[in-house]
């Protein structure tokens, strides 16, 4: 799992609102950095890292909620949550498949057909979850989310 980026220049005595600008901006940048190759099901760490980044961003938004205008905050949080849920739908299948593959590799031969049948069904679900995720991680969608977060951060500065 990708380590959280340290927040450089963070001053414990700075105002809560000033800290909100810095921390939410860093967490939003982390999310954008983890967007590449997320739809590649042969490398499941991409989706995992982006999902963790979306959770950290969501956590930062919730921590600093009092610093933001409520209407803008709720809409932005909902957008981040929608992305996190789509990433989670894919990730859940990735985890299940990894567990089934690991088990099957060590299972006796007569035990493998049953595990393979569940793995096949899970792969079909993984493909569907990937289709559902695709529009959420298109560059245009992520740029729109980035702009929304930037506006929110500017409102905290004001």
């Amino acid at each position, binding site marked *: 799992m990708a380590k*959280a980026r340290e*927040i450089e220049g*963070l*001053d*414990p*005595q*700075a*105002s*809560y*609102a*000033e*800290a*909100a600008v810095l*921390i939410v901006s860093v*967490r939003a940048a982390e999310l954008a950095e983890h967007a590449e190759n997320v739809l590649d099901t042969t490398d499941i760490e991409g989706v995992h890292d982006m999902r963790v980044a979306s*959770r*950290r961003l969501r*956590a*930062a938004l*919730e*921590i600093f909620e*009092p*610093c933001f205008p409520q209407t803008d905050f709720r809409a932005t949080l909902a957008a981040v949550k929608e992305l996190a849920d789509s990433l989670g739908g894919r990730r*859940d299948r990735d*985890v*299940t498949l990894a*567990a*089934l593959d690991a*088990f099957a590799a060590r*299972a006796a031969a*007569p*035990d*493998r*057909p*049953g*595990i393979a*049948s*569940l793995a096949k*069904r*899970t792969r079909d679900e993984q493909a569907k979850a990937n289709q559902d995720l695709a529009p959420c991680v298109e560059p245009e969608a992520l740029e729109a989310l980035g702009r929304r977060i930037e506006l929110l951060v500017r409102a*905290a500065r004001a």
Partner: protein
Amino acid sequence: MKARPVKKLDPTRSLAENAARIVGVRLGELRSLAPQALKPEKRTAQHDMRIAAKRLRYILEATETCFGEEAPAARRRARDLQDILGELHDCDVMLPRVHEHIARLHAEDVEATCEVATGAPDLDPRVAVAAPNRTHYRGLEVLTVYFEARRKVLHRRFREFWAEQERKGTWDRLERAAKATLRDTRARRRALEAGVD
């Protein structure tokens, strides 16, 4: 599990003062869930505790510089706790999936077996032997045994981990650090408000 609201958060006050309040509440949430979560059958409490560990970890990742040397260790232990409870949760996700898959295969086989026997007054056992999924059940049942056993092992590891952190005072030290930060930042703020340099 909805996060407990944190009172008296103020955008004009310092990060440290606000963060100390949040850490106090999140740590309290985490510890309050332990008595139930430590019972093996309390899956909801274990799931809630995983979420609480995640919330504590994320607030510490962002603000641990406000709390001195105790916070990084507590953050790492919150991460470890989240990992153990995460693996427990994976078992809880897997088991119903396997049971549901077995039920689905079973229903398919019943249907297929009935189709073969259409028109017959009774069912010849030889027809059931040709059920399309007949070779699948053994491996899936072994899989459920594995994940139920794994769950027990992981829950024992969770109990041992929690007991060790209580023994080492990990959460007590973080609580003291958060209280000290809150006390100091409040005193500093009141001094500034009173015009004292």
